[in-house]
């Protein structure tokens, strides 16, 4: 396959960026999107040019590192996958593909396609954990959790924190990410103890990081590689109201 790429190049956080044209030649349809970029980079390095910087780690859709907006959609055209799981057979020979980084004030571009997502870490640090010592693994069914609730909690816990929800949202909102992290804990007994403090702190932190609010469009859900639904966002709102109620404010 021969593909025309338009890739965002930006030398550093404060530098101006622009789309640069590249040609990816002799690409196998069985390559992943990131492998295709590896091939392009190898050619750049051979020619003594600066390789295109992009994030990746596990390359099997579970780590949340890869973060490319392909043809205007975070993680590319396929549902429920990360961009490392996107294969070149999804494109046609001769296609032009635009590749951009996540764009949000809270995710500043470090270089080319790499953004700094430590804002997510700070949101988690604000309350997305259980601070009590829960000890070793409890005996099965020692803490009864209804199956339906366990399922929803597990679905929320599938969030890999990649930030595609922020990238897709017209408001660069982190509500889907936060709500998944809040839901996975609020739904289960171990997370209940700190649920109110958690939701207030995490929302405060996200607002302070400069993420936007939510317009209920659900673009986040559509691009989420783990297909986390926006019903989590409604749950986060309920948690917020309950927390305010409990705090008597």
């Amino acid at each position, binding site marked *: 396959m021969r593909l025309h790429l*338009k890739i*965002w190049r930006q030398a550093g956080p404060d530098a101006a*960026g622009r*789309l640069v044209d590249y040609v990816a030649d002799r690409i196998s349809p069985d390559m992943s999107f990131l492998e295709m970029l590896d091939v392009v980079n190898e050619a750049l390095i051979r020619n003594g040019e600066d390789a295109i910087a992009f994030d990746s780690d596990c390359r099997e859709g579970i780590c949340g590192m890869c973060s490319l*907006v392909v*043809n*205007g*959609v*975070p993680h590319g055209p396929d549902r429920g996958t990360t961009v490392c799981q996107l294969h070149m057979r999804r494109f046609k020979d001769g296609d032009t593909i*635009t590749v*951009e980084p996540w*764009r*949000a*004030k*809270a995710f500043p*571009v470090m270089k080319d396609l790499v953004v700094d997502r430590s804002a997510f870490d700070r949101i988690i640090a604000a309350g997305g954990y259980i601070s009590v010592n829960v000890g070793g693994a409890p005996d099965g069914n020692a803490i009864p959790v209804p199956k339906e609730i366990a399922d929803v909690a597990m679905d929320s816990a599938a969030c890999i924190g990649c930030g595609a929800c922020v990238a*897709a949202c*017209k*408001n*660069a*909102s982190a*509500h889907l990410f936060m709500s998944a992290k809040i839901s996975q804990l609020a739904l289960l007994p171990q997370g209940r103890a700190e649920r109110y*403090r958690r939701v*207030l*702190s995490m*929302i*405060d932190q*996200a*607002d302070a990081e*400069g*993420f*936007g*609010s*939510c*317009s*209920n*469009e*659900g*673009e986040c*859900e*559509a*691009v989420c590689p783990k297909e986390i*639904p*926006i*019903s989590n*966002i*409604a*749950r*986060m*709102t*309920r948690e*917020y*109201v309950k927390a*305010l109620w409990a*705090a008597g*404010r």
Partner: protein
Amino acid sequence: MSSRTGVFSSSVGTKIVIGLTGMALVLYLVVHIAGNALVFFGPTVFNQYSHLLLSNPLVPLIEIGLVIIFALHLYKTVRMFIANQQARPVAYVRKKYAGAPSRKTVASSTMIVSGLWLLMFVVIHVTQFKYGAEYEVDGVRDLYRLEMENFANPLLVGFYVVSMLVVGSHLWHGIASAFQSIGADHPRWTPRLLAASKILAVAIAAGFVVIAVWAYVHQAGRVRP
């Protein structure tokens, strides 16, 4: 905790305020269109109904409440829109709708435009009707005559029809969105709510359009002296 930003200034609190005020405004629209539909029963019924409202001492209080709700909805949405724009200082060169299950539509993407259009419309509308010509018939205000006179002007009817399409567009996203904003979500009921809110949006817009066009078609010229 959230005392720093204030309960209703947070990104979630803002949504709750916008959702609740939006719901109140939709409720008002439903009452409004039900009252307007009485115009089909002729001037006597319509003027009696409007007199009932005008002579009710509670109505001015409700009006003040409406103005506050409207102003709050406007203030919170405009502030949220500005903050949301700031959350993405560098725009994408290429951005596409992600497709299902996203609920994104042209209507949801233009809420600020449709909302500001409606602000303009409401100012004009209230000037023309509430503060319009004070005709009197049988000791009550003749709003029927005022309505017919206003809608004798095809340009104005056109403006109203366009504005009602804008209302429909705003509600197409707004009604269901308001429920999601206050945290109301249910695996079985949300899909039905999404459908019902679109039906209600179309019904409200169509209802007002029919009334304006009916008034023009049936009465234009007849009431002009």
